[in-house]
């Protein structure tokens, strides 16, 4: 339950809506229950009254008749309203949850974010959030309304007979307490094992598909298929256990409601024979018990589902509780010149101290005067990209100091740091949005003319030619659901963004990757023209644009070698 608590606290914001939803759910159940009980009472009472002419004539059928009609309308209306309100509340919760989660992710370091970006992890987190927003609809609301209905029904019956009221209360309480516990416990182990086995099957299928070439060359197809079939059988076995449990829940429900009604009939008929209350009241009690099970119906499933939700919550909490990069609120000063100083900087990828943990950057010292242009060469894994991550505080150095304009990088506020440096990262994220929005990111206030100029400079205007788009170039939709950009086009987009954000320092990680020599040359000329007074660090493995650099440095195994 601890895992769920922080999420339940988010409910407070929408307390009004959520309470209204529960209230309406309750009204629906009570109206439904009253409709059946009152009808039972009415029929029995009229049947008795109809035995003699006088009682038949004096019987007040108007009030119960109106009640029956009223309840039938109330049930319909309340059900409709309940569904609308509870779904609306769920959407509001979802929106709150997402923006809460987003705000929790923002302060995480790039390193951690990078981890979450890998593979399906992020998809899973999004699915986990969706699972949490169902918490109210499937668990909180049914449980609350079941409890209230149980209390009200027994209270009402207590007007006529304490014994029957006690029986009703006992049966319902037992049900409300035991069913959730039983199904939570039963569901948890199988549920967890099911999750593991499904993940296992997914992994095997993924391995099988990724290794299809190897499978076919090495002739191991049949073996892989056999092993997948086995994993699938195991998953089906777990699901089968789960289905047995669900079936058991339904069976208990069917038998339980019947048996409870029978029990009430047995107790009440004894009391009726003893003259404690009339026949119609007895019928009302029996029908009431029968109908009240509608309120208890969702409980087994809700609690089977609880373990799933709890796992989702604990995964999310792991993310949310990760350590964050701390930026000081206020910067000591601004970075205007762009002088960079690395002093004996070391960096390890992981914090563990086993012998294998080689430093990625080893005691590196480097002074980059303001306005100078540096190219950084080196093989994959030599530490170039790590050096850049240190500058964006995506990684923290394990030793040494990094100074910008003489100020320690850790003492700069987030705003100061990112205002001082324009990055062209190795991987460009293309947002699922228009080209305009993708660019405005870098300069929120830029005019369309300014954007179009940059589009021209970066060569992105070729997008329009390729797509024969009649509309405004800036309105082209990119990313998911739009146009997929090629590697080269992504580089152009990243550079266009950089062109929109003037800064004293420009850091580029492989800016020319995926571009042919001519395009790269032209693009570099544009960038260097615009940033000629800025400090530039460029990672590359090509010769292009090296002649425009003041200094070319080579990295190997985390250290610098003069070129």
């Amino acid at each position, binding site marked *: 339950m601890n895992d769920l608590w922080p999420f339940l606290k988010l409910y407070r914001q929408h307390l009004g809506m959520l309470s209204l939803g529960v209230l309406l759910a309750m009204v629906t159940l009570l109206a439904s229950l009253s409709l059946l009980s009152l009808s039972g009472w009415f029929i029995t009472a009229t049947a008795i009254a109809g035995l003699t002419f006088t009682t038949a004539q004096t019987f007040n059928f108007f009030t119960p008749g109106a009640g029956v009609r009223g309840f*039938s309308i109330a049930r319909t209306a309340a059900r409709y309203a309940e569904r609308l309100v509870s779904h609306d509340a769920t959407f509001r919760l979802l929106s709150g949850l997402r923006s809460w989660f987003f705000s929790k992710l923002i302060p995480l370091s790039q390193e951690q974010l990078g981890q979450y970006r890998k593979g399906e992890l992020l998809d899973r987190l999004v699915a986990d959030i969706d699972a949490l927003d169902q918490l109210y609809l499937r668990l909180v609301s049914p449980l609350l309304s079941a409890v209230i209905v149980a209390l009200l029904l027994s209270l009402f019956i207590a007007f006529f007979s304490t014994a029957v009221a006690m029986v009703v209360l006992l049966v319902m309480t037992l049900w409300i307490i035991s069913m959730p516990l039983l199904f939570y416990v039963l569901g948890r182990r199988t549920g967890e094992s099911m999750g593991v086995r499904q993940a296992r099957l997914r992994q095997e*299928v993924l391995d099988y598909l*990724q290794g*299809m070439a190897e499978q076919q060359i090495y002739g191991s197809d049949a073996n892989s298929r056999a092993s997948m079939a086995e994993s699938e059988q195991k998953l089906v076995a777990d699901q089968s256990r789960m289905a047995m449990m669900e079936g058991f829940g339904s069976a208990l429900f069917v038998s339980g409601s019947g048996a409870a009604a029978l029990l009430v009939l047995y107790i009440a*008929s004894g009391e009726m024979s003893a003259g404690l209350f009339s026949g119609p009241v007895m019928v009302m009690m029996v029908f009431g018990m029968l109908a009240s099970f509608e309120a208890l119906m969702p409980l087994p499933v809700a609690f089977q589902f609880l373990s799933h939700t709890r796992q989702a919550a604990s995964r999310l909490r792991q993310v949310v509780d990760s350590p964050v990069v701390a930026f000081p609120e206020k910067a000591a000063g601004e970075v205007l010149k762009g002088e960079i100083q690395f002093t004996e900087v070391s960096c390890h990828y992981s914090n563990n101290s086993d012998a294998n943990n080689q430093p990625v950057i080893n005691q590196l010292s480097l002074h980059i005067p303001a306005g100078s242009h540096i190219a950084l060469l080196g093989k994959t894994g030599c530490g170039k990209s790590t050096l850049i991550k240190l500058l964006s505080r995506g990684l923290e150095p394990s030793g040494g100091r990094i100074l910008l304009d003489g100020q320690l990088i850790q003492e700069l506020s987030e705003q100061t740091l990112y205002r001082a440096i324009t990055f062209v990262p190795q991987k460009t994220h293309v947002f699922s949005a228009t080209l305009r929005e993708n660019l405005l990111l870098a300069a929120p206030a830029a005019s369309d003319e300014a954007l179009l100029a940059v589009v021209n400079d970066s060569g992105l205007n070729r997008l329009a030619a390729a797509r024969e788009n009649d509309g405004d170039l800036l309105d082209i939709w990119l990313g998911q659901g739009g146009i997929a950009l090629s590697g080269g086009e992504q580089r152009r987009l990243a550079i266009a963004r950089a062109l929109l954000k003037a800064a004293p320092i420009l850091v580029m990680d492989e800016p020319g990757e995926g571009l042919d020599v001519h*395009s790269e040359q032209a693009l570099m000329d544009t960038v260097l023209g615009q940033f000629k007074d800025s400090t530039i660090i460029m990672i590359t493995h090509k010769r292009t644009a090296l002649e425009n650099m003041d200094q070319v440095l080579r990295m190997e195994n985390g250290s610098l070698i003069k070129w």
Partner: protein
Amino acid sequence: MSQSTQKQAYRWLLRQIGAARHWLLISMGLGLLNGVLLIIQASIMAGMIHQLVMEGATREMLTDDFFRVLLLVVARGACTWGREFCGFRAGACVRVQVRKLLLDKLRRLGPLVIAERPAGSWSAIVVEQVEELQEFIAKYLPQMALAVMLPAIMLVVAFPRSWVVGIIFLGTAPLIPVFMVLVGMKAAQANRKNFQALSRLGGFFLDRLQGLETLKLFQRTSFAQTQLADASEDFRIKTMQVLRLAFLSSTVLEFFASVSIALVAVFLGMSFLGHITFGGEVTLYTGLFLLLLAPEYYQPLRELGTYYHARAKAVGATEEILDVLSRKESEAHHGGLSLPEAMPLKLEVKELSVSATIRSAVNPLTTDASDNKQPLLLDCLSFKIEPGTRVGIIGSSGAGKTTLINTLMGFWNYQGEIKAGGQSLADTRLDSWRKGIAWLGQQPLIIHGSVYDNIAFGRAVSREQCLDALGKAQGMDILANLPDGLDSVLKEQGGNLSVGQAQRIALARALVLPVRLLILDEPTASLDSVSESLVLDALDAIPEDCTVITITHRISQLKAMDQILMLEKGKLVADGAPATLARESSLYQQFIHMNSGSMDDE
């Protein structure tokens, strides 16, 4: 998602039931039995109450009835249980079968088609989408039959007892098929819109999460957060508009169920009091019995309504499944001849052409600069490779290098002729051809399992052979750092290995059984310098009689080759020893010149 593909998907799905039919029939039968028992239970209970209230019976006189009802109640529980279980078996049956269809299809499509999309998107169809079929088969289908049959049975029971109540039931009955359509079409449509809206919102959220680093670097996180809130709000409002309508259709059903209870109660009450004289004599027994039936009359249909989202989900999943199953396969057919195992391999390629037809969705926009029109991936190639030759394939990206080796491995359709030891590949069984070929790609494949699993790769290979191969691949040091030696479990995608280590394990996989043709696709492209030299050392130690074909762009590796094949736009533009080409081929000289621009070769 057009209407017609949905219908197609629905029909296809129904055809898959075949083997699961008996489970579904049992499930339906039990549901039907449950309904009949419920009617009997209602009748007995109504009779008991009648006797207690109208005839002054005591509960002791009704002991038998109490036990009868108890028995019925337990029997109904058992029916319900059995029904759910049989439904589950039916669903599981269909899922296993569809999954098999998908995997068979993907195997036939082969690695090249699979490589068109991230493997995760295929596996999502094979695993998750297939799961979506479960509820539809297990619950929706049996319920659909029950929603028609149970009300019919109840009508038959109700009419002889009171024709008025029968009429009240029946009066709403013609509406049931209308509801089926109304609830079905409208709710499914609304549900789908709801799901679409939710998944779009999910996609939006995911996109912003993935781009969070970029947002941070440009200080746009708070803006994105506002955007996210706005989008959520927008989706909420739109979706609620849709839901308002969707819920209305089920509310109509609810309304009829409620009103019919009210009508039955009022009619019976008035009859008892003598205010209504038509409809014949009714007793309290009849009245209570009919009153108990009234809510149950609509119950099957209401339940069906709750499974409608299952139908929408299943149809959606089926459309994706069909999308895979209907893909065109390569039509390459291979003969039944085997290659003699001990034979050294002489390769002869004559007028080999490969066209891009089976690749269905090559995105023409992904080439940044060059032209998109490439009808032929390989254009009339002819060359010979003697046994034991070290061959280098060079050329700019997109020249057809990878296509050539994929064709040699039997993954592409081709025209022309490929002969191994004088025997045409077209006459040879693929497995016999591939036996003795080993392949190493740019990105090492590490599967979830131990080091042994990764090297043996499903083949009958001893541990000694694995160790031996690992030694040949210069990979013994990897074992030293792993806790359980050969049995150490490697994390998915080699999480606990460096790329260089993973590549050496992949090399050990290639070398663990005798090889006569080793095909390497830029095996050192993604490696650091230390790993690269280790892998190159390992390759040097490969037996002389094994033919090695290497795609490379490392100029430094070319000198060690016996033969160079240079490709350009699918054509073979140079073929010969590197020293000869360096003297005679201007294209080769140009290539060397251009590529020494790369800093990787110092």
